[in-house]
């Protein structure tokens, strides 16, 4: 497909790898923020190509992974209510809540529908006024416009049986939390290209300046990722830190202002809990009171489940780049995609799932 294949071109990949090796006089440690990038890196073996000069640390950019357990429990509680249909992206289905996943809840009679877009959930609500349709609105800035549009459309069209259970996270505050940590070893960031498509990257400039850390907006194909790495390495070698854009075909400095205006119409910034990382100030979005009629948290009496029993999952450390998935003792032993202990093992952007899929044998070999 156009705009995909040409970015997997072997000759360009080799050229970029050679240039990175040529530029680096020492090893550099970079974090790719987005879980989609993590999967591409492992799938195409980019980590292995760069083995000699660059350590890629996997970042927190998996919205499914950072969704608090209590939110999964709430989604399940909604699915179990009579006349409520809980709609969700497929990615959320297998994520363990404190007792079960949405998939298990559905097997026991909960009403759960998988959709490709929140707009599909609005259509379902419109077609069936006898039931309440709740979309489990999880996501980063990339997904916020789609969720905002769904609420906006339902509101405009008077579709009153549509609501969202909202748990939105913002990437920049999480990057700052990582940089602030005393054990932080990240020298440069490959920023999440599709988040920046929406938000632009002007907002990173203060962060880059304050922490003297290069931030390069990076896409998702091998050529894109390697271009991001090259820009980062060149900055580090030159001893400078700036915000650069290596994904110019999709990202502009100011982002997609039309899309962000839509987000700001419907949502406002709020403090947000991240699974395993605690509450980060001003790192989430919640519905404005004007749209309270479409807010599942206000519309339904959602039972608050008991706190979850202790879980050996080390997702918080994985998500902040302190350990790699195969350093988690449960990896591939008590935690597998079929029987996951944590979200990173089942999400299509989770680092543990990527290691299980592409690096399982190596990981088990080094251990054994």
């Amino acid at each position, binding site marked *: 497909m156009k705009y995909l294949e040409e970015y997997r071109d072997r*000759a360009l990949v080799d050229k970029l790898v*050679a240039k990175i090796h040529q530029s680096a006089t020492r090893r550099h440690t970079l974090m790719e923020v987005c879980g989609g990038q993590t999967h591409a890196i492992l799938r195409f073996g980019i980590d292995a190509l760069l083995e000699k000069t660059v350590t890629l640390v996997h970042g927190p950019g998996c919205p499914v992974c950072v969704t608090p357990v209590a939110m999964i429990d709430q989604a399940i509680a909604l699915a179990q209510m009579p006349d409520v249909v809980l709609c969700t992206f497929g990615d959320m289905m297998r994520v363990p809540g404190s007792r079960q996943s949405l998939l298990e809840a559905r097997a026991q009679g909960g009403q759960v529908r998988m959709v490709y877009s929140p707009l599909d959930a609005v259509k379902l609500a419109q077609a069936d006024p006898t039931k309440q349709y709740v979309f489990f609105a999880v996501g980063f800035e990339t*997904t916020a416009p789609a969720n905002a549009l769904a609420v906006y*459309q339902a509101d405009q069209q008077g579709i009153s049986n549509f609501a969202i259970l909202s748990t939105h996270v913002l990437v920049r505050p999480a990057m700052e939390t990582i940089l602030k940590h005393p054990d932080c070893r990240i020298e440069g960031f490959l920023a999440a290209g*599709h988040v920046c498509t929406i938000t632009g990257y002007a907002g990173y400039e203060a962060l880059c300046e304050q922490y003297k850390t290069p931030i390069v907006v990076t896409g998702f194909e091998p050529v894109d990722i390697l271009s991001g790495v090259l820009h980062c390495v060149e900055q580090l070698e030159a001893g400078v830190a700036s915000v650069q854009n290596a994904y110019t*075909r999709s990202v502009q400095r100011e982002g*997609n202002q039309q899309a962000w205006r839509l987000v700001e119409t419907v949502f406002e910034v709020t403090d947000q809990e991240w699974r395993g990382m605690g509450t980060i100030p001003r790192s989430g979005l919640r519905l404005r009171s004007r749209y309270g009629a479409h807010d599942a948290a206000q519309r339904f009496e959602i039972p608050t489940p008991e706190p979850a029993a202790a879980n050996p999952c080390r997702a918080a450390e994985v998500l902040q780049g302190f350990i790699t998935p195969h350093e988690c003792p449960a990896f591939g032993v008590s935690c597998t995609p079929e029987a996951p202990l944590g979200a990173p093992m089942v999400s299509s952007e989770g680092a543990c799932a990527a290691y299980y899929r592409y690096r399982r044998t190596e990981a088990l070999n080094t251990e054994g």
Partner: protein
Amino acid sequence: MCLAIPGKVISIDESEPILRTGKVSFGGALRDVALSTVPEAEVGSYVLVHAGIAISKVDEAEAARVLESIAQLDLSDEEDMLEVTGDAPETGGQS
């Protein structure tokens, strides 16, 4: 979840004022996509689609420029390169 796929706009429907939509082709597979946040996209444009909505119009000139500049990367320090990549092909351009 932030996965977004580029596709080509085949048709645009503006009959519903608050929801500009269109058909977008992903290598031949057609899908309905919300186009309200990419007003500059026209029939024939490539857009990046995420969760049923187009999040940007692909800048074709930028795409071409970047690929060209990578193909032109100067690797004159050949010894270093050979040591690292072995018999890497020298062809450059797109396949």
